[in-house]
């Protein structure tokens, strides 16, 4: 028996795919040899844990397998912010998901962080392509953001740090529509799919295609005690399916992003593509987030610098040119 938990509702894309892709796929493969069968109990949407509680829920054995939203746990899972501190490289969810997954397996750091939370890493989930800027007025560069208020959440608020007098206003996704429509903020940072869901085109008809890049936000993990008890055949099947789930979800994210962008335009939105120079200007204005991140890990005796270099190399190998070389600030 395996209890699967997530605090997000069953209709969320990654949860839905867990139900309708991950689980059936595992069942099918186990059925081939017919040695083992898993009895799944799926408990989503706060029945056992809230979104922020998945990490602790798996740790404490309230669930056996779960989808941890890593951005809530900067302190326990610092290495998970790798994609977040290296903006302006790749807006391809598939590439970022694969790179992060490989980094996890090549360096012990991320797995160690999870092990400390008494769980075993299975796969990285990248569920959105990239954040963009949605505005009332047409904007083109960070000059237009100076002295304005921008709604956002989490680490992306720090992307505004280098812009003169720009203030990040924290808010939940559901608030952004109202925040923009009342003029509480002038811009909002979110991704196209969310923009479509919350009808952002009605209040912010201009999207600046800044392409900050895809960010890893989800990780599938399993309770260590539970994992240890599994027969190796089952372990192998789960690990295989986890990788397929990683690519499957990233693919869906890309497809949805494209559709959502079309829907945004159909709803009256205009997409302004940010020029390469303007993106560079923004990237250069930011504090050296990546170096800060690497240094923080190095201090704990983890190979932060190496991980950052390896990650950048992987993205370059996949054909992407970083707008800013985030390894430049490393000592």
């Amino acid at each position, binding site marked *: 028996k395996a209890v699967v938990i997530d605090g997000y509702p069953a209709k969320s894309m990654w949860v839905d795919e867990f139900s309708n892709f991950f689980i059936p796929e595992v069942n099918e493969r186990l059925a081939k040899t017919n040695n083992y069968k898993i009895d799944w109990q799926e408990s989503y949407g706060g029945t*056992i844990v809230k979104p922020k509680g998945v990490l602790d829920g798996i740790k404490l054995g309230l669930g056996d397998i779960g989808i941890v939203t890593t951005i809530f746990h900067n302190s326990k899972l610092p290495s998970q912010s790798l994609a977040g501190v290296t903006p302006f490289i790749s807006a391809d969810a598939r590439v970022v998901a694969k790179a992060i997954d490989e980094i996890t397996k090549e360096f012990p750091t991320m797995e160690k962080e999870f092990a400390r939370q008494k769980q075993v890493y299975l796969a990285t989930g990248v569920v959105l392509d990239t954040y963009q800027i949605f505005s009332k007025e047409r904007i083109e560069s960070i000059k237009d953001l100076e002295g304005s208020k921008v709604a956002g959440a989490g680490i992306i608020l720090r992307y505004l740090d280098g812009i003169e007098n720009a203030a990040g206003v924290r808010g939940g996704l559901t*608030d952004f529509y109202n925040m923009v429509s009342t003029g509480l903020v002038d811009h909002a940072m979110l991704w196209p799919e969310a923009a479509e869901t919350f009808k952002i085109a009605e209040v912010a008809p201009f999207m600046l295609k800044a392409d900050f890049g895809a960010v890893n936000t989800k990780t599938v993990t399993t309770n260590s005690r539970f994992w240890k008890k599994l027969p190796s055949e089952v372990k192998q099947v789960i690990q295989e399916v986890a990788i397929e789930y990683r690519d499957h979800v990233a693919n869906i994210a890309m497809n949805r992003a494209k559709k959502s962008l079309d829907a945004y335009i159909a709803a009256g939105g205009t997409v302004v593509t940010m020029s390469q120079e303007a993106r560079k200007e923004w990237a250069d204005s930011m504090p050296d987030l990546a170096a800060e991140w690497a240094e923080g890990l190095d201090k704990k005796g983890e190979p932060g610098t190496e991980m950052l270099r390896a990650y950048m190399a992987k993205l370059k190998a996949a054909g992407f040119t970083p707008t800013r070389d985030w390894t430049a600030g490393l000592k």
Partner: protein
Amino acid sequence: MSPIEIGVISVIAIIVLVYLGLYIPVALGVVSFVSIWLMRDDFELSMNLLKIAVGDSVMEYTFATVPLFTFMGLIVSKAGMGADIYEVMNSGFKKVKGGIGMATVGANAVFAAVTGSSIASASVFAKVSVPEMLKYDYNPRFAVGVVAGSSVLGMIIPPSAMLIIYSFVAEQSVGEMFLAGVVPGILLAAAYIAAIWLMGKFIPKYVGGKPATEYEWMSFKEIFSKTAPLVSLITIVLGGIYTGWLTPVEAGAAGAAVGLIIALIRGKMSLKSFWEALIETGHITASILFLITAASIYSRMLGLAGLPNELALILEQNQMSFMMIMVIYVCLMLFLGTLLDTSSIILIVVPLFLPLIEPMGLSLVWFGIITVIGAEIGLLTPPLGISCFVIKASLDDDRISLKDVFMGSLPFAFVMLVVLILLINYPVLSIGILH
């Protein structure tokens, strides 16, 4: 034991313990703890459940609305703003049969928009409105019934502690819940006024009262000075939330600050009563949030047992109709309402029914309004009806027994039930106001 059996036994155990007089949060916590322990034969898992639920539930940002709106409500009533609005309403309704009753309902509806609890409403209006009605020879039962019935508005018209609690359990936005409460609240107030009018028409003896002798209209200036503070508070709070300028938490803080300023300007706030309001706020917050924490332990226990999954399966197999579920739901709430307070009812029934409602594609905001109103009928029903207790206690008048208060409230409890059925049948009444 199957999940269903565990669910049923735990609910029965909780009800028995609560009726016995065990503190409700303790009952919820202990029963959940023991259930998990027995179910999984794992003491540590039970401890882990406590670990994750305690603190986790309190850390919710939107819960800051509980102390903020409570504080605002206390400040507002200590500043005498409830009595003011009543006087204004009364000058308008005096000539009609049952007019003071109608004025009480109207004033309550307005006052409700700045207070988060029915208790504040019940105690304020028991003191101002009941003596006035008795002075004009109203039937005492009718008089207290009106106050009890209309005090319920305090928790339906936003801001409302109950809507906040529901939005936490069902993971809905507090702002949307608040907006959805506006129309049902006004509807209920209108239904009360209509009911009073009908009573005055068909059973005038039950209403009682003689026409007012003095027809003293308030001057415009007086009306203005008595309503402006409340109206400005309502504008800040509800306007702020509706337009998106303020989150519910910020609206609560702004309301508390402005309420305090108004009270200071009017010179009705001593340091002592200010401190009392603060302490009272803290006590209310602590007991509500501790209750919520315990309820979250309970609902997680049900989740671990797999009860939601089982219920959904049963629903699928038996094709239980929407009407059936609603009938069961309302009956259960009325039953629990005899003895439990509103927040406990919400916290016990919602986790049980949410998994049934969600897959049916029904709006959870609408369901929340239904739940809150259904659970509040219990405020008016014996043997434990909080609103009635408060009225009896604040009246301190031997001519009116607790029984009179309960009997007087019954017609209004019935009106609530009618409005509830209306709201169940026409969801647009609650959720039409959202985009």
